[in-house]
C-alpha cells in the first residue's frame, strides 16, 4: 500500500461510461417533464411498426414504433425511469441490508454477541401480546419472569460490566449464513419467476423482492472482509482501550469492512438490471401497460423485420451494463491502492 495515492487519471472510456450513466439518470429523473409527442404505453394505431422517421406530417416517431404502435423513444425513457426509480433503490436497500447484517455476523460471530436473558423473555412476551396467542396466563408469567430477570441482571451488571451470568449468545453468524444459503438454494431468476407468479407486484413490492434476492451477495462479501478486519491490530487496540464493542464495530470496523462494496455495488446494480430486464422480457410479474427495455425487446419477437425495435433498447441496456462494469473496475482499482 502506497503512502500517498496518486490522483486518479480517468481515461476516455471512464469518461464515456460516466457520461452515459449521467445521461441515463437525468433522463430517468426528468422523463415526466420532457416534451415528448407520445406517451410510452399508449399505442398509435395509425403508425404500427413504422421505421424511424424525421419527416413532416404530425409529430414524428423519432425512433419508430413497435408492432403495437408504441413509440420506441418514449419507451426508452420509460425504461430509464424504471431503472432509476426501481432498480437503483433496490440496490441501495440490498447493499445497506447486506453491509449491516454481514458486518454484524462477521464481527460477532456465533458466540460473541451476548444479550441479557431478560431481552429474550421481553421479546417473547411482546410477540405473544402482538400476535394475541391464546393462554393469557403465559403472557403474565413471561412478563413476570422478564421483570425479575431485568432486576437481577441490573444488579449484576452494575457489579461487573462483563459478567456472563444471565446472558445468552445470539448465533448471529449461523442465522445470516443460513438465510443466505436458503436464498441461494434456487437460482435468482427462478425464485423471482416463482415469487412474481401471482398478480403483478406493485413497484414497492418489486423493490422489496429484488432487494431480498440481492442482499446475500453483499452480506457474504462484507462478512468475509469483516472476519479479516476483526483480527487486525487496531481493533485489538480499540478493545484494549476499553471502548464498548458497539462503538468499535460502528466507528472502527465497519468502514474498513465496507470498502469492497464500492467496487461491488456497480456490479450488483448491473446484475439486478439484467435480472429485471430478463423478467420483463419473459413478461412475468408486470402489468401489460408497463414499458421497460426488457418488454420492448420482447415485442421484437412479434415482427423480426423491425430492427429498430430491438436495436435501440438492446444498445441502451448493453451500454448501461458496460458502463457499470467500467465503473466497478475503476472503483476496484481505487480500493486496491
Amino acid at each position, binding site marked *: 500500500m502506497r503512502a500517498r495515492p496518486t490522483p486518479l487519471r480517468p481515461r476516455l472510456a471512464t469518461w464515456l461510461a460516466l457520461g452515459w450513466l449521467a445521461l441515463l439518470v437525468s433522463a430517468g429523473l426528468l422523463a415526466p417533464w420532457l416534451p415528448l409527442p407520445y406517451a410510452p404505453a399508449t399505442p398509435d394505431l395509425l403508425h404500427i411498426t413504422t421505421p424511424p422517421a424525421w419527416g413532416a406530417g404530425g409529430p414524428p416517431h423519432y425512433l419508430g414504433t413497435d408492432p403495437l404502435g408504441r413509440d420506441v423513444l418514449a419507451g426508452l425513457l420509460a425504461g430509464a425511469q424504471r431503472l432509476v426509480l426501481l432498480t437503483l433503490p433496490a440496490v441501495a436497500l440490498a447493499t445497506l441490508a447486506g453491509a449491516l447484517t454481514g458486518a454484524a455476523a462477521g464481527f460477532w460471530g456465533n458466540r460473541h454477541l451476548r444479550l441479557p436473558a431478560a431481552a429474550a423473555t421481553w421479546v417473547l412476551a411482546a410477540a405473544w401480546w402482538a400476535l394475541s396467542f391464546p393462554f393469557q396466563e403465559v403472557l403474565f408469567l413471561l412478563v413476570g419472569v422478564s421483570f425479575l430477570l431485568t432486576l437481577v441482571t441490573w444488579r449484576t451488571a452494575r457489579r461487573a460490566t462483563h459478567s456472563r451470568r444471565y446472558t445468552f449468545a445470539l448465533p448471529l453468524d449461523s442465522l445470516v449464513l443460513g438465510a443466505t444459503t436458503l436464498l441461494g438454494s434456487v437460482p435468482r431468476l427462478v425464485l423471482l419467476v416463482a415469487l412474481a407468479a401471482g*398478480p403483478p407486484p406493485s413497484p414497492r413490492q418489486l423493490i422489496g423482492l429484488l432487494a431480498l434476492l440481492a442482499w446475500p451477495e453483499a452480506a457474504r462479501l462484507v462478512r468475509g472482509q469483516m472476519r479479516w478486519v476483526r483480527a487486525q491490530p487496531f481493533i485489538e487496540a480499540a478493545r484494549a482501550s476499553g471502548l464498548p464493542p458497539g462503538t468499535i464495530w460502528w466507528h472502527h470496523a465497519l468502514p474498513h469492512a465496507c470498502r469492497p462494496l464500492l467496487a461491488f455495488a456497480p456490479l450488483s446494480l448491473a446484475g439486478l438490471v439484467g435480472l429485471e430486464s430478463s423478467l420483463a422480457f419473459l413478461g412475468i410479474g408486470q402489468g401489460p401497460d408497463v414499458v421497460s427495455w426488457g418488454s420492448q425487446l420482447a415485442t421484437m419477437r412479434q415482427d423480426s423485420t423491425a430492427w429498430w425495435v430491438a436495436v435501440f433498447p438492446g444498445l441502451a*441496456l448493453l451500454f448501461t451494463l458496460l458502463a457499470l462494469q467500467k465503473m466497478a473496475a475503476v472503483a476496484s482499482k481505487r480500493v486496491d491502492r
Partner: protein
Amino acid sequence: MLRWLLGRLARAAGAAWLTASLVFIGSRLLPGGPDQLALADASDLSRPVAGTRPAATQQAARLAVRNRLGLAQPIFYVTRTAGQWQWHGTANQYHRWAKAALHGDLGYSYRDGQPVATLLVHALRYTLPLAASAAGLAVGLALALGLYLARATGSVWQRLVANLLNCLQITPLFLLALGLLLLFANPEFLNLLPAAGQAPGAASHGQLAAYWLGRLALPLLSLVLAVLPELTLPLAAGLRQEATSGYATTARAKGLTTRQMLRHHALPNAVIPLLTTLTDLLPTLVAGTVIVEVLFALPGSGRLLAEAAAAHDYPLVVGGVLVTATARLLGLLLADVLYFLVDPRLRPTA
C-alpha cells in the same frame, strides 16, 4: 467422512424443503388467491359477457373450483382468523401437499390436470441433455481459452479475446440469445439455423438428428457463451498466478516450454478453485434454460416453469422450485466431495 457427508446431505435436504415450503405458502397467501386467478383464466371463454352472470352463480362456481382444487381447507396447521388462533390438525393444505410430495406425488397442474411429476420428467428429458452438453462444452472451451490467455504474449488476438470475454460477462443471457436469434435465424438476414419449424414427420434417423442439431445449435451456443467468461477469466488469472511461483520457474529451468509448464504443472493447481465456479454454473444454466427455451421454443423444464408462472399454475411452480433447489444443493454437495477427493489438504478433520 460418512458422517460428515450424511450431515451435509441432511442439511441440503432441509434447505430444499424449506425453500419449497416457503414458495408453497407464499403462493397460497398472495392477494387474489390462486383460485380466483385460475377461475378468471378458465372462465374467460365460457363467459360471454363479463358481469352478466348473477353474483350467486359466480359465488357457487368459485366455491366449486375451490373444492375441486382442494383450496377450501385451511393453509397451515394453525391459522389466524378474526384475531383468533385456530388449530386445524392435519386437515390442511400444507400437510396434504407435504405428505403427497414425500410419496413422490407433486400434485396436478391447474391448467390441464396432468400430474406435475410427469410433466417435469417429460420436460427434463429435453433440458438435462441441453444443460449437460452446454456445461461440458463450456468447460472444455474454458480450459483451452484459459491456457491461451495465460501465456503472456500480449498479442492483439489475446487482448481481443480477453475484452470480448469481459463484455460477455456482463451481458444478460436474454440479450445475447436475442442477438444470436436475430442474426442467424432471421428470414430477413441470415437464415442459417432455423429456430422454429416442425420436425420432419416421416424421416430417417439421420434427418431427425440433423434437424435437432440445427435446432439446438443456437440455444447451446447462447448457454455456452453465457457461462464461458465466469469459467475462463478466473482460470486464466489463476494460471498466471501459478506461473509466477517457484515450481514453475524450476519447470522452465529444466527446459520445458511455457505451454508444457502451464499444462502439466500449473493447471492441476489452478483448476481446484474452478470447482466452486463449476457448482455455481448449475444455477446459471438452470436460469439460462428458462430464457433460452422460451426464446427458441424448446419444450423443456425452463419453459414449463415460465409458462406455469405466467398462468398462475402454482402446483407446477412449486414442484419446479423443489426440483431446482434439490439439484442445486446436490451440486454444492458434489463440489465438497470433489474438493475432498482432489485436494487432501481440505479434508474435514471432524
